[in-house]
């Protein structure tokens, strides 16, 4: 108790409180803007931390790192654009709720879950400290492999109405994830000779393309965020808070997943949020009466990932504190701050620096509370966005999506891939292919391969007899069998899918991709080819089953819808060309003015003001706050 009071007194110093508030505000800002994440914030903060005492430095760094996953919910729910890669799972149900006029409720539930999850992560951290070293070392790569296998079985829960399409979507995600240098042999896989692809396809670009572009297309089609003209339901915010509290078991369960997986270096926030989302869906295979299905605006689909991704920060402090081993970039910087101030991490911190340790835990908890409260305060204003005309909202949102994607590598290929994944996302949405299943395959497949090869190199096949491995593989097998049982049972009840020529066309395109991918593996070293080959082989089988199941198409399909999708993709395509040709400032300006002219709304003067404000924001963030060397626009010489 004395330590807690001493820590509170230390924290109460004005400079430290100011640093905490500054960190939180910056973290919230970084979370809201698509494409940039915690790393962006860290590059702003690093120079400041050198001159600060340890507690102030931690207040700033941890304050920022703790809340990016709170505010990234705002664009995820309102416009279907994940603010950071950690909010893609929140889009699935959160944005559906916004469409139904429940934006405030979704945001209220999300912030509450984030706050409780974040504080829970801090409490878990505090409880773990006396046993942190054995805890961090508890799981080896065999265990992690089995947990990843279990995570992949959650695809079954995210597959939507047609489980074969769901499984295939996960396979496609896995194949995309295997692009790059393989972890064992170090050979190039499907990189087309491009160094750009050596480290794989940028995660932020994939998620922005897959989720943001199709959802913005939907907003534009509807004319506004909501599907109906109804006013947002009154008291939605309070209802959201109550819902999160009512599902406290889920909040803590997802928080545990976040804190636990967060403590393992190499398991990032993208894995955590999707596993938490799938786990929530698994826990409710028989959806409660009156509860929307997952993917159709189920509030549990918002609560679970939001609780997990905020609890992660507490967990990720564990390896840093236990061994001085940084679990993430922010922890590496924190470790640098430790060294500068002569703090030695490890169990001895409990004796030597106990006050400092407690202030760190308090910082994580306080930042989460403060971040959620600020967001809650802003919600009534933000929820009004749901009624803003789409012709104003969508071009503006696209500018930030485009700049966010371009920021990844400042390479024209960022924008090309954004368009390609946008097109894929549009087609998947229209033809009923589960994008969450794709996401799960995409984030888990690389770990499956890496953990397998590490386990095999370290202990041959012995790891297969480890208790944790056996338990998780058994749970995974049970999940698969239960799903198979459910599908068989439901087969008789379901009406046969009315497949169209479009469905068949898309499946045929998938078949071609799978065949090309599989064929190109011939001649590659065996170890580099084995996992992609298994995925490609399995995908081939499922594609053929799907084609057989589809049979002769009964209709042409929603050709008009597809044409509308193709026309929509021209809009971000035009933005991409504008950015490349005219630069990251003039390009979006021209794009916004042309969009206003094309849509006939808003009025010219309003459009100009909006465009200039948007540009001022882009300029302030990407040129003043964190100056970048943007590539020279194509038309610069002219």
């Amino acid at each position, binding site marked *: 108790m004395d330590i807690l009071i001493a820590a509170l007194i230390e924290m109460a110093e004005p400079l430290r409180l100011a640093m905490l508030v500054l960190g939180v505000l910056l973290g919230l800002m970084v979370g809201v803007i698509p494409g940039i994440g915690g790393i962006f914030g860290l590059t702003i903060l690093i*120079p400041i931390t050198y001159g600060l005492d340890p507690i102030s430095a931690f207040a700033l760094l941890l304050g920022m790192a703790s809340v990016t996953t709170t505010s990234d919910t705002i664009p995820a729910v309102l416009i279907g654009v994940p603010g950071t890669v950690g909010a893609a799972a929140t889009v699935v149900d959160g944005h559906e709720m916004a469409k139904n006029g429940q934006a405030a409720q979704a945001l209220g539930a999300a912030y509450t879950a984030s706050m409780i999850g974040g504080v829970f992560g801090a409490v878990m951290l505090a409880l773990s400290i006396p046993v942190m070293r054995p805890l961090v*070392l508890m799981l*080896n790569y065999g265990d992690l492999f089995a947990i990843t296998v279990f995570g992949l079985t959650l695809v079954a829960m995210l597959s939507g109405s047609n489980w074969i399409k769901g499984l295939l979507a996960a396979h496609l995600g896995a194949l995309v994830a295997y692009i790059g*240098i393989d972890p064992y042999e*170090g050979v190039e896989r499907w990189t087309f000779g491009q160094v*750009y692809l050596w480290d794989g396809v940028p995660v932020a670009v994939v998620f922005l393309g897959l989720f943001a572009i199709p959802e913005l297309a939907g907003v534009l089609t509807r004319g506004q965020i909501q599907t109906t003209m109804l006013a947002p339901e009154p008291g939605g915010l309070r209802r959201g808070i109550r819902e999160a509290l009512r599902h406290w078991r889920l909040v803590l369960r997802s928080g545990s997943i976040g804190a636990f997986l967060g403590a393992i270096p190499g398991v990032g926030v993208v894995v955590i949020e999707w596993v938490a989302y799938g786990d929530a869906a698994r826990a409710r295979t028989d959806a409660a009466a009156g509860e929307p299905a997952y993917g159709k605006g189920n509030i549990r689909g918002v609560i679970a990932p939001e609780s997990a991704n905020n609890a992660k920060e507490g967990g990720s402090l564990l390896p840093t504190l236990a061994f001085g*081993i940084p679990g993430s970039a922010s922890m*590496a910087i924190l470790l640098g701050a430790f060294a500068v101030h002569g703090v030695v991490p490890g169990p001895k911190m409990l004796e030597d620096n106990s006050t400092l340790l407690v202030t760190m835990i308090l910082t994580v908890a306080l930042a989460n509370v403060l971040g959620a409260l600020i967001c809650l305060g802003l919600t009534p204003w933000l929820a009004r966005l749901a009624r803003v005309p789409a012709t104003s909202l969508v071009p503006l949102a696209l500018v930030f999506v485009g700049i966010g994607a371009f920021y990844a590598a400042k390479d024209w290929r960022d924008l090309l891939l954004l368009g390609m994944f946008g097109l894929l996302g549009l087609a998947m949405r229209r033809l009923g292919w589960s994008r969450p299943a794709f996401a799960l395959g995409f984030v888990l497949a690389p770990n499956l391969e890496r953990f397998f*090869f*590490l386990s095999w190199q370290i202990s041959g096949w012995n790891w297969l007899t480890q208790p944790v491995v056996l338990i998780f593989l058994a749970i995974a097998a049970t999940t698969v069998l239960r799903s198979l049982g459910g599908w068989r049972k439901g087969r008789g009840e379901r009406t046969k899918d009315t497949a169209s020529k479009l469905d068949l066309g898309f499946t045929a395109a998938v078949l071609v991709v799978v065949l090309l991918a599989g064929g190109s593996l011939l001649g590659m070293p065996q170890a580099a080819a084995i996992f992609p080959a298994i995925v490609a082989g399995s995908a081939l089988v499922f594609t053929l089953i799907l084609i057989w199941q589809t049979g002769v198409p009964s209709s042409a399909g929603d050709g008009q819808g597809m044409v509308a999708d193709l026309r929509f993709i021209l809009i971000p395509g035009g933005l991409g060309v504008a950015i490349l040709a005219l630069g990251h400032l003039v390009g979006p300006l021209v794009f916004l003015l042309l969009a206003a002219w094309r849509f006939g709304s808003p009025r010219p003067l309003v459009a100009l003001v909006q465009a200039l404000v948007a540009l001022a924001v882009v300029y302030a963030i990407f040129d003043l706050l964190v100056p970048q060397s943007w590539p020279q626009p194509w038309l610069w010489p002219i």
Partner: protein
Amino acid sequence: MKPFSLSLALVLSMGMAAKADTISIQVGYAPGGSFDLVSRLVADHLGAFLPGNPEVIVENVPGAGSLKVAKMLMADPATDGMVLGSVNPALALLPFLEPENTDFDPTKAHYIATMSQESSYCITPKSTGIETFDQFLQSGAKVGATGKASSTYSYPAAIKTAFGANIEIVTGFEGSAEIDLAMERGDLQGRCGITAANLVEADMLTRYTVLGEIGTTPSAVGPKAEFILDKVSDPATKAALTLIFSAADIHHPFIVAPATSPERVAELRAAFDAMVADPGFQEDAKTRGYLLGYRSGAEVDAVIAGLLATDPAIKDLAHQMVQ
């Protein structure tokens, strides 16, 4: 069209203002590592020693162990040297360690300076009971590495071949944090390629035995350990191992594009020399926990010329040793 033209002019001028006189240091790695640390240290001081006192910014462009930045610079036609790369020193060895890889040519890129000439070390957890380098060589130890292109692989691979050592290299770790945790867990018994700066972090020295020093000359500042090159008797093997270890001689290099004008290269080199001589810079480096081991551009050129002039047979041997 009037509002349109006005805003265009405004934004263009904003763009111009942002472009003027800003030097960018592009780091080939993510924030938080030693390359990021040294680049930010340089960025905070370099501008004061260049004509016009330009602003110097840092951008992280991680990818392919910094080859991404290096390749981008190789193709950059600009002659003004406004973009500096902070890249892996082992790229200088690319022509003979990976002859098929032509993405980077150390003879064409201009090296401005290196901030460090730091040795690396082989370590083992104390719990393994391995106390000497000779014991380590016969221990059957598993040593962790990230990818086959990284020094965490090339150093132990070269040691394994040079000494006929009974060690195994486990590849596929995502970073040094994972390797260290696997050592703590007992899955691995060693790591080769950790720097002195990392070793003195936290309480590592109390938990690990430092087995050997990887470098071409013994370090004056690092922990005491057996100097690995001294243990090799065969002249050819020693020469090949020296070649592989020589990346340590230019540990944190800064490069500019091949197209950069000779005048600009000279200007940048002079600015680095003046910056490192400045007590304010030295004090700041100390505060940030950075171990300075400066070598000027001319010295780096000499090191690289020496490497590339090595007998082709030795280069081939070095190539084979890291496979």
